[in-house]
C-alpha cells in the first residue's frame, strides 16, 4: 500500500542533490527510513568532537548554522542543503558545531541506506566531494548570504567528469634499501612532503611523510643512518590511474589518510605511477565552479569577489590547457561572471538600503562580450540598466544611477576596468526607463549615422543578468518591430560588418598594427573576432531570431535556418572558438585581455589554426555583400 508519509518525504528528497541523482525506488527506500526531527530555534544538534550517529541530515524547513570552535560561522544550510556526511564516511568526530538559527525541521537519513549507491553513482561522489570541499575551503569568509538563483546547480554535475588527477608525471620515490637520511634528501630536493618507498621493481611498499621524520627521527630515538623501512607506514593504499577527484577524496576520507599511491593495476603489486596527496585534491577543488559560485554568494565586498575571480582565471587556464571545449568553458565562465554581477548588485543594494530598491522594477543588462556569453578574461565593463518608470517613487532615475555607480565601482575592484567610452549603467544615458530606451533605439534605427550604428553593434548584444527580465524582453520586441519597418537600417549594419576585411590573403603575412602602443602586433579582437561577431549579429537580426547572443550559437542557429549555408556557418562557429582559445592563451601569457598578439611569438600550430580561422570571414563578407546588395553603396 502507498504510504503517504513516505511519499511526502520522497517528494521532498527527489528535488535535491544527492537524492535527485538516485532512481525512484532508491529514494523511496531511503524515505521509508527517514527520521523527522523538529529543532526549535537556537538548539544545538551536534558539537565539535562528538561522534556522529549513523545518520546525516537534510534541511526540510528552517536553517542550520555550522560553526567552528571560535564561533565563526562556516556554512549556512537551508531548505534542501545536506550536511554531516563527512564525519560518517571517515568515522571521525564532527569538525563543526551545528545549531538551528530558526525553528527547523530536519530529515535524518540513515547512512546504511545511502552508502550502497555511492559506488555506483559517480555523480553522487562528485556531489559529496564538492560538498566536503565547501565545508573545508571557505572558512575565511565570515558571513554567508542565502540568495538563490536559477543556475544553482551549475558545475555540480560537470566538474568531476572533466577532471582527473594527472598522474603521468614521473613519480618520486625512494628504495627500500635507502637510509632515512637518503630518503629525506630526495624529499628535500624535490620539495615534497611525503615519499613512497618502493622495492626493486618500483612497487610501493610503504610511505613516509614529514610527520614521520619529525616525530620518529627528530623528536624520537631512531637515527637517520638507519633504514627507511623503520619509520614508514605500510602498506600504502593504492588506486588505479584515471579516477575522479571525487573518488580519490572519498577513499582518503574513508581510510583517514592523506596520500594515495597510483599504480598501474591499482594494487600494491603494480608499478608505481604517481602519488596523490589531499593537498593536490584541495588545490584542484578550490577552482571548482560550483564552489566558486558558493564563494561568490558569500562575498561581502569587491575585494572578496576579486579573490574569487582570480581563482576563476586559474580555472580557465586549466580548462584551456586541458583543451576543454570552448562552448563549455564560456558557458561555465559566463555563469560565474553573472553570479559576480548579481552579488555586486546584492552588496550595493544592501549598502544603499534594500527597502529603497524593493519596489523599483529594474533589469541589469550585460553588453558586449559578457552579453554574448563569451567573455573569459576580464575586459572593460560594458553594461546598462533599464527600469520601469513609476511616478509614485521619487527620484527613481537617480536611485538607479546611484545603484549603478556602486555596482560599477565594485566590478572595477573585481578587476573589470571602467569602460573608457563610459558605456556603463552609471552613465545617465545608459540608465534609462523602458520608454526612454525605446526612444533611444528609435533614434538609432531611424536616423542611423556612423555613431548610431556603432552603438547598435554594442547594444544589440545585451543580455539581462539581474532583475526583471520582462523589461528587457519588452525592449527586444520593440526593436524587432522597428526593424521590420526600417529595412535600410540592416543595410547600414551590413556595411558596418564589412568594415574590417578578412585579415589575411592566402600567402601574405598577418596585417599588423602600424601605429601606436601596439605597433607590430596583431589585433585579434578587431581584425578577426569582430568581423565574425558583426556578421553573426547582422544575420541573426535579419532572420529575426532573437534570444541568442553567443556568436558560436548564433552561427549554429543560422546553420539550421539556412541549410544551404550550413557548412559556412559551422566553419565560422569553429573559427570563432579557435579565436577565443588563442586570445585567451595569449592573455594568460601577457597577463592582460589577450587582445594584441605578436604573430612571431605564436607557435606553429596556433599560427596555422589562426590562419584557417580567417577563411570563413572572407566568405561570410562576400555573402553579406551580395545579400544586402552592398555593391553600389561600397
Amino acid at each position, binding site marked *: 500500500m502507498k504510504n503517504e508519509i513516505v511519499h511526502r518525504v520522497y517528494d521532498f528528497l527527489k528535488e535535491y542533490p544527492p537524492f535527485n541523482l538516485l532512481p525512484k525506488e532508491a529514494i523511496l527506500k531511503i524515505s521509508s527510513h527517514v*527520521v523527522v*526531527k523538529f529543532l526549535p530555534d537556537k538548539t544545538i544538534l551536534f558539537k565539535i568532537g562528538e561522534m556522529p550517529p549513523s545518520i546525516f541530515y537534510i534541511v526540510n524547513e528552517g536553517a542550520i548554522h555550522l560553526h567552528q570552535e571560535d564561533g565563526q560561522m562556516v556554512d549556512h544550510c537551508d531548505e534542501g542543503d545536506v550536511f554531516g556526511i563527512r564525519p560518517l564516511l571517515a568515522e571521525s568526530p564532527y569538525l563543526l558545531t551545528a545549531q538551528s538559527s530558526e525553528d527547523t525541521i530536519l530529515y535524518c537519513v540513515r547512512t546504511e541506506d545511502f552508502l550502497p549507491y555511492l559506488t555506483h553513482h559517480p555523480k553522487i561522489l562528485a556531489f559529496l566531494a564538492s560538498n566536503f570541499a565547501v565545508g573545508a575551503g571557505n572558512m575565511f569568509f565570515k558571513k554567508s548570504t542565502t540568495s538563490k538563483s536559477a543556475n544553482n546547480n551549475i558545475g555540480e554535475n560537470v566538474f568531476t567528469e572533466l577532471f582527473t588527477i594527472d598522474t603521468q608525471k614521473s613519480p618520486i620515490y625512494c628504495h627500500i634499501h635507502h637510509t632515512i637520511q637518503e630518503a629525506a634528501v630526495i624529499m628535500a630536493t624535490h620539495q615534497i612532503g611525503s615519499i613512497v618507498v618502493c622495492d626493486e621493481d618500483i612497487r610501493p611498499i610503504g610511505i613516509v611523510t614529514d610527520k614521520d621524520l619529525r616525530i620518529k627521527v627528530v623528536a624520537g630515538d631512531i637515527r637517520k643512518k638507519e633504514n627507511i623501512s623503520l619509520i614508514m607506514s605500510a602498506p600504502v593504499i593504492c588506486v588505479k590511474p584515471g579516477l575522479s577527484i571525487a573518488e580519490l577524496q572519498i577513499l582518503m576520507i574513508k581510510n583517514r589518510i592523506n596520500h594515495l599511491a597510483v599504480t598501474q593495476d591499482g594494487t600494491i603489486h603494480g608499478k608505481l605511477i604517481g602519488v596523490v596527496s589531499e593537498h593536490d585534491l584541495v588545490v584542484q577543488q578550490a577552482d571548482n565552479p560550483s564552489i566558486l559560485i558558493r564563494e561568490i554568494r558569500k562575498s561581502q565586498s569587491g575585494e572578496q569577489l576579486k579573490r574569487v575571480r582570480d581563482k576563476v582565471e586559474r580555472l580557465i587556464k586549466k580548462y584551456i590547457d586541458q583543451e576543454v571545449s570552448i562552448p563549455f568553458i564560456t558557458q561555465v565562465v559566463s555563469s560565474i561572471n553573472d553570479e559576480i554581477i548579481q552579488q555586486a548588485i546584492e552588496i550595493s543594494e544592501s549598502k544603499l538600503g534594500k527597502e529603497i530598491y524593493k519596489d523599483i522594477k529594474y533589469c541589469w543588462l550585460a553588453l558586449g562580450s559578457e552579453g554574448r556569453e563569451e567573455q573569459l578574461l576580464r575586459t572593460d565593463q560594458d553594461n546598462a540598466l533599464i527600469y520601469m518608470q513609476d511616478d509614485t517613487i521619487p527620484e527613481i532615475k537617480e536611485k538607479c544611477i546611484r545603484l549603478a555607480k556602486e555596482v560599477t565601482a565594485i566590478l572595477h575592484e573585481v578587476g573589470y576596468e571602467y569602460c573608457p567610452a563610459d558605456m556603463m549603467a552609471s552613465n545617465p544615458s545608459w540608465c534609462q526607463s523602458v520608454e526612454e530606451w525605446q526612444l533611444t533605439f528609435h533614434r538609432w534605427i531611424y536616423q542611423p549615422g556612423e555613431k548610431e550604428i556603432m552603438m547598435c553593434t554594442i547594444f544589440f548584444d545585451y543580455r539581462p543578468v539581474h532583475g526583471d527580465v520582462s523589461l528587457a524582453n519588452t525592449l527586444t520586441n520593440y526593436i524587432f518591430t522597428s526593424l521590420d519597418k526600417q529595412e535600410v537600417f540592416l543595410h547600414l549594419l551590413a556595411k558596418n560588418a564589412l568594415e574590417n576585411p578578412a585579415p589575411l590573403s592566402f600567402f601574405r603575412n598577418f596585417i599588423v598594427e602600424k601605429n601606436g602602443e601596439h605597433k607590430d602586433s596583431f589585433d585579434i579582437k578587431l581584425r578577426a573576432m569582430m568581423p565574425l561577431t558583426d556578421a553573426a549579429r547582422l544575420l541573426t537580426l535579419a532572420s529575426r531570431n532573437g534570444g541568442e547572443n553567443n556568436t558560436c550559437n548564433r552561427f549554429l542557429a543560422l546553420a539550421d535556418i539556412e541549410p544551404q549555408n550550413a557548412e559556412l556557418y559551422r566553419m565560422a562557429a569553429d573559427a570563432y572558438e579557435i579565436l577565443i582559445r588563442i586570445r585567451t592563451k595569449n592573455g594568460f601569457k601577457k597577463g592582460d585581455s589577450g587582445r594584441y598578439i605578436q604573430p612571431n611569438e605564436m607557435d606553429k600550430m596556433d599560427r596555422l589554426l589562426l590562419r584557417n580561422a580567417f577563411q570563413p570571414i572572407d566568405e561570410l563578407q562576400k555573402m553579406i555583400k551580395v545579400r544586402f546588395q552592398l555593391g553600389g553603396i561600397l
Partner: protein
Amino acid sequence: MIWKKLKNILHFDTADKEVYADFYNSYLQQFQKLDTKKQIHQQSFVVLDTETTGLDLVQDNILSIGAVRIINNTIDIADSLSIIVKNEQIQTQNAVAIHGLVQTELKGQSPEDALVTFFDFVGSNIIVGHHIDFDIAMLHKLSKSHGGDVLKNNVLDTSYLARRLDHASDPHSLDRKEYTLDKLCTRFNVVPKARHTADGDAYITAIIFMKLIQKLSLKGVTNIGQLLK
C-alpha cells in the same frame, strides 16, 4: 469437555464485561499510568487520524487509520502506522459485481487485525489528533464491536492546544472554525499535501503538534501535567 464449553457460552451470555478479545487484553496488560512530572520531550505521543465513510457515529465506519509516534521532537517514519480497514459491508454487498474502487476497499486488514495492530502501536502513549474526539469515538465503536473496549490513554486535541496558545485563560471562547487543520497548516507553514488520507493528515498534525508544544513551552508549559491541564 462439553460442559466446559457450555459453561463458557453461558458465561459469555451473562455478558460479563471482563472477557475481552485478545487484542484488548494485551492492551490492558501493557498499559502504564502516566507520570505527569515527566518533561514533555521525554514522553512519547501517538498522533493519529482516521478516515471514515461519513460523520455519523452510528451508521458510518472507519476506512483507514494513520498514526505516527513522536518522542523528543522526532518522528521515525519506519515507526508509523498506515492501516486500511477492510469494510465488511461493502464486501458482502458487492461480492459479485466488483469494480475498481470496491476492489481497493477489499484490500487491507480485517477489522480484527486492524485492532491488533492499532492497539499494539498506541500502547500507553498520549494520543494526539486534530478534533480528536470524533476519531476516538469511532475507534471505540470499532473496538467494542470486536470484543474490546475504550482507550484508556490521555488525549490531546491540537485544535484545543492552538486555542490555548492564543488565549490561555479561556481557550473555549475562541471560534473552533478558525482552528481547522487547513488554517493551522497555513499558520505553521506546513504544506498541506496528501490531505484527507489518514496517514497524510496524521503526519501534518504531528508537525503542527511539535510546533505547538514548542510555542507552549515558551509560555511555561514544560511537563506532562501542565500540558494535559
